[in-house]
């Protein structure tokens, strides 16, 4: 019997490579090798139009640091990650507080999730139209504002657009994180909330003493997901902050826009070397943020 099982185990081990190899080789070939290549190319000067990459050491990174467009890209990306993240999670928390025992909560959740299935390009265009400022023929939002007697707002003015994008981002992402957090909240035994009811806890106290500590792990995972999602932000900004066909003003750039602009999106000369250098910064940033987040969220695991 044990011998048979042992043989079986060995048989299963033999399955490992044929099962694992196709996926891992595609992964290595299409994702890891290009990543390494990107890192290497980040240290070269290369237009990417038939010329040969020339090793230039840290020159690209020096230029990145000194360049306004990159500074804006970096800071905006950070802003979207941090402010957008805080906003999204605060919203998600508020919703978990309310949705937990609300009637129709499931339907509401489904409706809130809806923006997540919409292509970011489509979202950007949609908001571009909805946020138009044009006296006598306003976009939807200003139309509503004016019908409440509030002055129309120049949402798409460059000084506002970063915040508008942040708002759109929060609106579009909240459903996803509400869904994940609510699933974690649903796993919390209801009697804990009942006990808190008997204790007379307010919604906030329940959140603080039950929901938050008991969904901590999921919040950590969600935070990581948010970070790696937000660092890629590109289409929404590209379409919403600019005319949509050319790169928007640098004040609204993100790292994603920067990389695209320097490679395939520019109307000037492509600079693949610079794009790769910026991509390296993206990888570094996401690594640092994820490690930081994980460290911040570290805690004894809780079983219930």
């Amino acid at each position, binding site marked *: 019997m044990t011998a048979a*099982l042992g043989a*079986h*185990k060995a048989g*299963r*081990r033999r*399955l*490992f490579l044929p*099962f*694992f190899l*196709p*996926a891992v080789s*595609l*992964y290595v070939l299409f*994702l890891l*090798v*290009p*990543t390494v290549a*990107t890192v290497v190319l980040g240290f070269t000067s290369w237009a*990417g139009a038939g010329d040969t990459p020339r090793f230039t050491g840290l020159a690209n990174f020096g230029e990145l640091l000194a360049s306004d467009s990159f500074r804006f890209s970096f800071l905006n990306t950070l802003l979207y990650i941090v402010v957008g993240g805080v906003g999204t999670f605060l919203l998600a928390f*508020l919703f978990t*507080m*309310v949705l937990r025992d*609300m009637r129709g909560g499931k339907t509401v*959740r*489904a*409706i809130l*999730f*809806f923006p997540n*299935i919409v*292509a*970011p*390009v*489509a979202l950007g*265009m*949609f908001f571009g*139209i909805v946020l138009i400022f044009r006296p006598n023929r306003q976009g*939807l939002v200003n139309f509503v504002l004016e019908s409440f007697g509030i002055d129309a707002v120049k949402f798409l003015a460059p000084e506002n657009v970063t915040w508008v994008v942040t708002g759109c981002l929060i609106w579009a992402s909240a459903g*996803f994180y509400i869904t994940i957090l609510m*699933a*974690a909240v649903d796993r919390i035994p209801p009697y804990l909330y009942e006990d808190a*009811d008997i204790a007379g806890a*307010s*919604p906030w106290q329940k959140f603080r003493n039950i929901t938050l500590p008991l969904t901590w792990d*999921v919040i950590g*995972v*969600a935070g990581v997901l948010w970070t*790696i999602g937000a660092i*890629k932000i590109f289409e929404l900004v590209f*379409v919403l902050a600019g005319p*949509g*066909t050319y790169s928007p003003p640098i004040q609204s750039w993100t*790292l994603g826009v920067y*990389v*695209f602009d320097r*490679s*395939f999106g520019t109307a000037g000369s492509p600079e693949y070397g610079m*794009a*790769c250098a910026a991509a390296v910064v993206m*990888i570094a940033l*996401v690594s640092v943020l994820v490690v930081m987040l994980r460290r911040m969220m570290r805690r004894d695991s809780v079983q219930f």
Partner: protein
Amino acid sequence: MTVTAPRVPKPTVPPRVAPRRPRPAPGSRGLSPLRLLGMAFVWLFTAFNILVLYWLLTATFKTPIEIFTKPFALPYQWFERGDPFRNIIYAWSNAGFGRAFLVTVVLVAVSSVAIVLVSAPAAYALTRLGVRGSNGLTNFIAIGMGIPFQTVVIPLFIGMAKLNLTNSLFGMFLVYVALSIPFTVFLLTGFFRSLPDELEEAASIDGASPLRTFFSIMLPLARGGLITALILNAIGLWNETLLALVFLNENANFTLARALFSFYGAASYQSEYGGLIAGVAIVVLPMLVLYVLLARRIITGLTLGAGK
């Protein structure tokens, strides 16, 4: 101690009708200001989403003037002119969404299936074959989720160009499959991990070969997970723009998101708001239908993946 008389003759009352909605527990009826605020906000937010959807649907059938001056009204001008589908037809034929639709459906369907076909055995191998170092390997693949596409797109493009696989749907397919592997493997390891051991042991005692065990026992058991992975990848790829933008250059190969991106410029020069919104609707609606049909599965799948 008294005995409550069990047979107190009850006065004959008309048959009681159960209340349609039983009373809530008294604690929950206390509307704290925070809760009231929260409720109001939740409903406002939800209403906004519904409004957005309504706007998109109606604007698809509106003229540009209607879109901007009567955002809440039902469309009528195109109907009056007897051409209610004018915007959709414009987007479908003039802007190439018809062809893009076909391309996208086929590309997304084939890619999603292929992704799952490649990832499921890998996830199975990583979770259930008891090979040492599996955890490390799982993390090794999961790290890939953190690599933004932008960072690999250039070398990938050059590499694919050398193989003559750029501007080709097959090349696009390869890229889509490969770049979706980290997420899918990560998601599916969660599913496979949650399956009970007993069935596999029973199968091995019955003498089923490991391969057979996988195909006839584990795959059917993980069906829920596989379908979730399929749907999530389908949604993701359906909306994918950046890679399509770089890898597909020929109109005939455009995917919907790519076509929309290009159409946007053209539409603004041509003041083609109706067609543009119809284009947005063509991109959004199929996913919306898919979502309405499968919302539950998408949501459970997501939470399963995230919960692990």
